């Protein structure tokens, strides 16, 4: 065989391998989509698991979301103030903080916190179930593992993240306000009325819509890598890491796309 032929064969094999890699996530998405209708059947959603994940992703994540968002709002406030005081435009700190928090940092901070808290936990949990042959056991019981294990997580995340985002938004705005009032000596009433004046419901809703998309991405990435885990302890660790990296990547990509999209409709 000539060298060129060998080269072509190698290229072909690489391409086929790459195609295989693309098929897996699609198969997974297909399985999740196929399981969705079962949500509306009797016993469709496992309430116990759903409640467990709702607590994990929701109420138990609330303190850290509030704290991080408050700090983030404060940091934004300082950065804005440093520049705006040059123009004597301190009061616009309220605009800058308010819009950045509602449109970007609120949803984004919640997404990053939940990637760490929930996404990695999903991957590790499913990976461990694989090591234990629990997933095989489900299959031989005639239960579809994807529907059974993914849906409670998905529904819990879809509910929890938007709500957390609202809390994060409020905390972020207060963080900025704390800086504005204490450091810049803007009167509280002035900062508050400026905030109320410039912010609108649609901006907030668009931010919350982002968090809905993020919650999907984080859950799917976590569960996908969990199911892909190899059946050993390292495999479980690796799948958790991959889940975190992938979900942060996709969250940022989705954020960029949505931001561009929003700018087209004037937001």
């Amino acid at each position: 065989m000539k060298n060129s032929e060998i080269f072509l064969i190698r290229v072909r094999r690489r391409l086929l391998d790459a195609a295989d890699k693309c098929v897996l996530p699609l198969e997974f998405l297909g399985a999740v989509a196929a399981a969705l209708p079962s949500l509306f059947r009797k016993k469709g959603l496992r309430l116990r698991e759903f409640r467990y994940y709702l607590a994990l992703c929701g109420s138990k994540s609330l303190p850290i979301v509030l704290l991080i968002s408050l700090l983030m709002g404060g940091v934004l406030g300082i950065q804005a103030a440093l520049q705006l005081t040059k123009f004597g435009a301190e009061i616009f700190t309220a605009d800058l903080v308010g819009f950045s928090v509602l449109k970007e940092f609120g949803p984004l901070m919640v997404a990053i916190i939940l990637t760490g808290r929930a996404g990695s936990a999903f991957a590790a949990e499913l990976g461990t179930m694989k090591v234990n042959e629990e997933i095989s056991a489900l299959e031989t019981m005639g239960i579809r593992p994807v529907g059974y294990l993914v849906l409670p997580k998905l529904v819990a995340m879809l509910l929890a993240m938007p709500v957390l985002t609202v809390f994060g938004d409020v905390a972020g705005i207060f963080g900025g306000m704390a800086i504005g009032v204490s450091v810049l000596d803007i009167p509280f009433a002035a900062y508050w009325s400026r905030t109320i004046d410039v912010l609108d419901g649609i901006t907030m809703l668009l931010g919350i819509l982002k968090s809905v998309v993020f919650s999907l991405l984080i859950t799917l990435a976590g569960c996908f890598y969990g199911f892909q885990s190899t059946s050993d302890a390292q495999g479980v660790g690796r799948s958790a890491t991959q889940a975190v990296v992938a979900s942060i990547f996709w969250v940022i990509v989705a954020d960029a796309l949505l931001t561009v999209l929003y700018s087209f409709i004037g937001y």
Partner: protein
Amino acid sequence: MTGNANLSSDVIEVRDLSIGYGKRTVMEHLDFSIRRGEIFGLLGGSGCGKSTLMKHLIGLYRPQKGDIRIFGESIVAAPPERRREMMRRFGVTYQGGALFGSLTLSENVALPLQEFTDYPPEKIDRIVREKLALVDLADFGNYMPAEISGGMKKRAGLARALALDPELLFFDEPSAGLDPLASAALDRLIRSLRDKLGATVVIVTHELDSIFSIADRVIMLDKSVKTAAAIGDPRELKEHSGNAWVKSFLNRDGLKGA
């Protein structure tokens, strides 16, 4: 004979089966049948592919080649939905127990009942207690899998496999990690499942004592030739097999350099 349309007494038929992972073949040219009401052993050295073969028989993995027919129907060719229906007729235990870590033992046993029957909760409770008592775990219903020993996990897995009174049972090393008395009790339990319920049992085990006392026939998987070295009655193979490896395996004289 039950009113089943399937007249053959073979519950499982395996034809020219090759199994493995990816491109690597673990066993090939497997040809055997398992009859209704039989206790059938899968034997062979560690790592020879017993668990792999069992997972193919229950339809978890697709073979590299060949066919597996269960109750006359190919589980290899069946579409996923049909395969799941076929799987529901099996009771399976795994080498490590495979209990659901987030559920108590009772909930583990109750799960298949909740999923696939419309029994009222009291009836499910009663069946769960009955199955746990069968494997001597009556007092441990409220324990989590992480709180019990390895042998107890295996027994709990067995109770779960029996929840729906399946007609076809697959046990992967059910007695490994059990003390001699518990192991003998398990042998009695397996025999009574066959005798009372007419179940067919496929069992992977290293315990020669239990093989000789309960197995009707065995298949002996030889790692060195990647295929079955013998199929038949273990007591007969022990005495009369023409295959040196089979003989030394069953007579436990492998170390004498047979």
